[in-house]
């Protein structure tokens, strides 16, 4: 138990669009909320890891929160920024670098799809200039191939999005709080077929912060600990089907989601059937369908049965994206993974209000995936 790390405070600045508030300010509000949740002062935080993609350096948060001289490491791992920050804090606390650690993420993106620069990703200029370097294209191409290989119907894409917006409507801090009918989703504008407007999440704004300490210090710092049974990230292997790939190897390899998920289950000593509440990367509803299987919650192709029988709903066997996921919350890249962690903490503490999973959930699971083939997974326990 001595090596175990507990989450003792969580805080968010609601996702969405907040004119007049910088991304950094939203990160600071999230940290203040986490400190209030834990009953701690900023001066007690001994180490911090954090990041944003488009809203500046996380260590500049100290300018807003207080210049205490502690080590503050900036993390820039795309969609896995939050997960990487969390895993780094766990390692730092285990190594005795500090007693209280902070993982924080925030962001504020321009409207519209991301426009990546080829050189940042080790790619040649023509790839961007000729219109091949769009994340939305990748998600559409992967979904199209997946539906074909596993004989799944396109209707599932609207079904998954419908559940996301239904759950978002139950979540006070969600951005999109209006349920949409399956027809509205299925008939919305085509973005990249088979994916349509309401099947994609939007780049957004927001902040999320998580405070942690070692098991031995939980009594000292009080609170209601949520135990981190696993927190890790993985990168891609040769042959996996990844975003920003001018070509794909003949032999397809498992995605980093699969390797991160397996490693996390092994570290936690539990299996997919033990998990009571699940947050999966849903950049689009096709990704979510794929990620249900890649994380081990069903066999490939089984999603048709799962979704049609309602087994991924809040009251069912596999409650997925109980807060509406990225579809209802938008994706401030730096904060997105920590939003999932916070949602699981709230569910495990039974503080999730109208979207609370029934009974006493014991184990929760979070998963992010992003460019250029990174995934971070956490397994949390009451």
């Amino acid at each position: 138990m001595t090596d175990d790390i507990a989450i003792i405070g969580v805080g968010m600045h609601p996702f969405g669009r907040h004119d007049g508030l910088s991304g950094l300010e939203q990160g600071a509000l999230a940290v203040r909320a986490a400190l209030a949740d834990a009953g701690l002062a900023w001066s007690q935080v001994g180490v911090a890891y954090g990041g944003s993609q488009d809203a500046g350096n996380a260590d500049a948060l100290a300018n807003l929160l207080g210049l205490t001289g502690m080590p503050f490491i900036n993390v820039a791992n795309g969609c896995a920024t939050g997960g990487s920050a969390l895993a780094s804090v766990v390692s730092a606390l285990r190594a005795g670098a500090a007693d209280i650690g902070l993982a924080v993420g925030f962001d504020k993106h321009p409207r519209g799809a991301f426009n990546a620069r080829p050189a940042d990703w080790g790619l040649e200029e023509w790839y961007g200039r000729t219109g091949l370097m769009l994340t939305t294209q990748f998600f559409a191409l992967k979904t199209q191939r997946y539906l074909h290989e596993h004989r799944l119907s396109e209707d599932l894409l609207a079904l998954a999005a419908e559940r996301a917006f239904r759950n978002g409507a139950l979540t006070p801090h969600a951005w999109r709080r209006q349920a949409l009918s399956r027809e509205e989703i299925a008939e919305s504008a085509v973005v990249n077929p088979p994916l349509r407007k309401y099947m994609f999440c939007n780049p957004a704004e927001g902040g999320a912060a998580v405070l942690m300490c070692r098991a031995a210090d939980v009594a000292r710092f009080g609170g209601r600990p949520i135990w981190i049974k696993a927190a890790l990230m993985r990168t891609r292997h040769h042959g996996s089907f990844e975003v920003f790939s001018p070509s794909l190897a003949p032999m397809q390899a498992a995605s980093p989601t699969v390797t991160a998920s397996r490693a996390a289950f092994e570290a936690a000593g539990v299996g997919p059937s033990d998990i009571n509440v699940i947050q999966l990367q849903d950049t689009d509803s096709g990704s979510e369908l794929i990620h249900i299987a890649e994380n081990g919650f069903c066999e490939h192709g089984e999603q048709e049965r799962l979704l049609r029988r309602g087994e991924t709903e809040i009251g069912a066997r596999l409650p997925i994206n109980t807060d509406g996921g990225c579809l209802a919350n938008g994706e401030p890249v730096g904060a997105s993974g920590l939003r999932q962690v916070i949602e699981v903490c709230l569910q495990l503490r039974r503080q999730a209000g109208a979207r609370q999973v029934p009974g006493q959930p014991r184990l929760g699971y979070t998963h992010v995936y992003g460019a250029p083939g990174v995934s971070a997974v956490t397994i949390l326990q009451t």
Partner: protein
Amino acid sequence: MNNLLAPHLVALVDGAPRLMGSRCTACGERYFPACRGCTRCCSTDLAPADLGGRGSLWSWTVQGFLPKAPYDSGETASDFAPYGVGYVELSCGLKVEARLTEVEGLVIGMPMALVVVPYRKGSSGLQTYAFSPVTEGRP
């Protein structure tokens, strides 16, 4: 095909365009575009490789909105023409991402052939490689 944005990607062999890449001399893995390191076996000994110009459609979508920069077709949101995007599986097994000449009638598994097309508006339009469905009666 004398106005290719990236001339190193395509070569003419007997009058027909073919994609050019690399082959790892240690493990045989092929790459597009050409590269200096094998991500499969970590060798740095790669040789130029002719990847061919025929294949079958492995996955597809249509780009339905005008991409932001660095896309530089010269179009605006009002005159943007959606274009196809897909992965084409070549005979060597490598799947190459490409613009597709069609936005309708695309079916996974259909035979495809490499072509060179203008992607930039105007008389001095730059060209890039693309794949086109092979129709009956066409070579």
